[in-house]
């Protein structure tokens, strides 16, 4: 289809998008959801399996307490109510990566429900309603062989590895989010970002989208102002923050072009393609399977009592947004400055540097200045630039003690990034310490005076400002290691000014 697509701004001027997000998060428990198999990555195929997660006849599931607690904590962090009584349900459909040909999930009795998450978009606070948070099991990994690029299309056979089958998977479903207008893509991205930070702060998952421990499906629909919501499509495998934004944007444009052409949107799942940034149709609602949910008879109901929930709630950490706000105040930053800290991904680094003894201003100066520049040059994350908060704090300590001036400190930092050791070691090894003892400097000063008689005369005749030139000369001969203040005093003293 090669019809030219309408421009985004022009589309959102005419249509109102409604978005919704369904996120799956793999929990970082030691063992799987219903068996004692380890969850660690990178094992040889089918080395993390047992009769239960292979779905062998006769095997039975037993729920993992840590996974239940992690889910309740996520629910609480998202301001959800926790079910007083709920059951697992079987979602029945045939697929080879699902050992039992049904998935143990939850249907109409989710563990957590009716919550919300506040996210900031351009300083604006947007409240995203959370419909439900429930627990289920992940599937195995299927390797498609014979086709091009390992895609399922054209594959002649597939190979299944069940190491990931049965990993606890938390599903977080938002309510539909209307009224975000042109900002819909940013809101979607901001929500997933905030959700990721919240879950990371709980320490229940490493939430790495690139590794698939956080996966996102995006629902999008368009309607004309004043009219009811349009038919929604569900875009699957959107696996980076950037893609979340792109997927919403491209789906808004695609739907608009269909509607503009007088067509109607079919309710279907669509697949997002990282490379092209657009979506292609998958299964349509008409052909969608009837999952025949029913209560899982092999697992008894969950009934978290108030005391248990209260205990988990009491142990919740400060939520990222509130934490960031507190830091901003402590550091005395403007919203704009805080934003640039966030964009640089420097919050935790600065926090740690301050904790190691540096002032917020100094810590921010190093991380956003010199180190951000190097990170950009070498194309690495700021956290991986090669300097630790501890080293940065130590470096700043040397500056404050007058042992390093700014120029020398940058040289020392180079050594740190190059892995030459601690700032102090590098300073001594490279002999970069500021020289301030007068004996050593007097010679250099006399040299400079002798070399510049006319400037010396000016100073003698009271033009003290001219001393700067001589200071510069001395700094040159001492390769910048002299302490400028001391040099100036010496010059004035020698010239009796």
């Amino acid at each position, binding site marked *: 289809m090669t019809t030219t697509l309408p421009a985004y701004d022009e589309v959102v001027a005419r249509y109102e998008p409604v978005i919704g997000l369904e996120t799956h998060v793999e929990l970082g428990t030691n063992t799987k959801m219903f068996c004692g198999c380890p969850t660690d990555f990178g094992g040889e195929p089918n080395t993390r399996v047992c009769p239960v997660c292979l779905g062998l*006849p006769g095997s039975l599931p037993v729920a993992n307490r840590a996974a239940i607690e992690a889910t309740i904590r996520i629910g609480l962090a998202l301001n959800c109510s926790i079910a007083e009584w709920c059951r697992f349900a079987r979602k029945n459909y*045939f697929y080879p990566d699902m050992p039992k040909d049904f998935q143990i999930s939850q249907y109409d009795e989710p563990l957590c429900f009716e919550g919300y998450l506040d996210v900031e978009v351009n300083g604006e606070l947007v409240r995203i309603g959370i419909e439900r948070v429930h627990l289920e099991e992940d599937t195995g990994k299927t390797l498609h062989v014979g086709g091009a690029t390992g895609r399922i299309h054209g594959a002649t056979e597939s190979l299944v590895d069940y190491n990931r089958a049965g990993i606890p998977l938390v599903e977080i479903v938002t309510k539909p989010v209307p009224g975000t207008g042109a900002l819909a893509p940013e809101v979607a991205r901001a929500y997933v970002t905030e959700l990721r930070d919240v879950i990371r702060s709980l320490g229940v998952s490493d939430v790495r989208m690139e590794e698939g421990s956080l996966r996102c499906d995006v629902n999008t629909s368009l309607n004309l102002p004043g009219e009811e919501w349009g038919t929604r499509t569900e875009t699957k495998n959107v696996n980076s923050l950037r893609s979340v934004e792109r997927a919403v944007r491209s789906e808004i444009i695609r739907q608009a072009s269909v509607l503009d052409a007088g067509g109607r949107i079919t309710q279907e799942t669509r697949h997002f393609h990282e490379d092209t940034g657009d979506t292609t149709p998958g299964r349509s609602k008409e052909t969608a399977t*009837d999952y*025949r949910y029913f209560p899982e008879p092999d697992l008894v109901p969950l009934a978290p009592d108030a005391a248990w929930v209260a205990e988990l709630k009491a142990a919740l950490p400060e939520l990222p947004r509130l934490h960031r706000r507190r830091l901003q105040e402590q550091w005395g930053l403007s919203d704009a400055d805080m934003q640039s800290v966030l964009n640089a991904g420097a919050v935790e680094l600065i926090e740690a540097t301050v904790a190691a003894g540096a002032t917020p201003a100094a810590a921010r100066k190093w991380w956003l200045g010199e180190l951000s520049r190097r990170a950009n040059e070498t194309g690495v994350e700021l956290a991986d630039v090669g300097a630790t908060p501890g080293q940065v704090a130590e470096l700043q300590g040397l500056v404050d003690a007058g042992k390093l001036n700014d120029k020398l400190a940058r040289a020392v930092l180079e050594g740190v990034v190059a892995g030459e050791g601690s700032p102090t070691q590098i300073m001594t090894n490279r002999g970069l310490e500021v020289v301030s003892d007068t004996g050593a400097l007097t010679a250099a000063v006399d040299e400079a005076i002798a070399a510049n008689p006319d400037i010396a005369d000016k100073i003698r005749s009271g033009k003290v400002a001219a001393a700067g030139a001589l200071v510069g000369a001395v700094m040159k001969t001492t390769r910048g290691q002299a302490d400028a203040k001391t040099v100036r005093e010496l010059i004035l003293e020698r010239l009796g000014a």
Partner: protein
Amino acid sequence: MTQTDLTRLTATEIAGLVASGETSAVEVTRAHLDRIAAVDDRVNAFLHVDAEGALAAAGEVDARRAAGEELGPLAGVPVAVKDVLTTKGVPTTVGSRILEGWRPPYDSTIVQRLRAAGTVMLGKTNMDEFAMGSSTEYSAYGPTHNPWDLSRIPGGSGGGSAAALAAYEAPLAIGSDTGGSIRQPGAVTGTVGAKPTYGGTSRYGLVAFSSSLDTPGPCARNVLDAALLHEVIGGHDPRDSTSIPQPVPDVVAAARLGATGDLTGVKLGIVTEFVGEGAEPGVMAAFRESVDALTKLGAEIVEVSCPHFRYALPAYYLIAPSEASSNLARFDGVRFGLRVGDDGNRSLEEVMSLTREAGFGAEVKRRIMIGTYALSSGYYDAYYGQAQKVRTLITRDFTAAFEQVDALISPTTPFVAFPIGARTADPYQMYLADLFTIPTNLYGGPGISVPCGLSDGLPVGFQIMAPTMADDRMYRVAAALESVVGTFTPPAL
């Protein structure tokens, strides 16, 4: 002592002889293996005989005894295990083609406990495919024949275990009871079959038919043996979430108490709904005689109405197939078992469908489709959902009844063993065989069938139903009845 004699002994007697050293576990095992070799071509109770494993296990028991070790109450006693339980390295087929030749990489909890107790597993017994049936005619490996009359069915689904006992091929056997598959075969073969409280015996390694109903349990030729086996296999299992974390009631003591023939102070309720309709005259006659006998032993007997029991059969045939349709999905030819039609061109979906078509028998297919139907959106509420509500009402009938009486009694089955082939044409006629046993499964309580007489030379079973976790009560009453009517011996094969 000759080998035929050894096969006629009770489990208690065998354990005693082995413990005292008058005979060895190996001798006992050989005697039973010989008996199997002699008669099983006619009975077809066994799908797999593990002679090697059995003799090895028996040898261990003898060695432990020689070493002066303390042996358990059933050490050295042979046991036949229904092929529904996984046995590590030993074929487990569930009576189905789809698992032909499958050797599980793990033992079921029950089998583990049998091994730990020093019992000797002779092999795996025949059953209706996936325990779906009441005659063992639905086994993919041919029907089992009733030792009382080889032209008749031994009941089902656990006909193999029951027939093995009646044919003296084993003194003990394990069955599983989803709608009567332990009790009904017990009844028609003149043996004892006990369905424990749901959750009182572990389902781990029991190939699931209907998860909320399946209950493994003991089969024997007398009540005390059944109780001893119940004690060995019962008790909490952390690998089964529905396993009850409480000790099994002292069923052995209860059986011994009952054997004294005193039921003074015991109040029994005849289920009105089960004696009016359904049961054939010969069955009712034997049942009435037994009721009189129990009265003479001091039991007080009243009639109790359980109005919703008449809906138990339809509710059961919605709940069980629904769960089965999901439980049997995993038999897809991917990880284990049969695969058909994988010619390199066909898609996975086609191969799955051809595999299941070829691997499952007609009754299994019927139940899978009924269950799929009952769970489908649009039908769920009227069928599966409504059946679960009826289940609640049946449970309430039981609870109310047990406020009036200690246990409920009824015939185990409406009719004695019928000729092979008599009911296969009309699946629903077959379902009626479980009319009296199904309510117990829906409620989750224990039930036992004990022989109470003959009708035209064929055994009749007497059923005792007790409250959940009161399994001891039914053993006491069963043993008391047995003390009067005795045990029943089929004609020589």
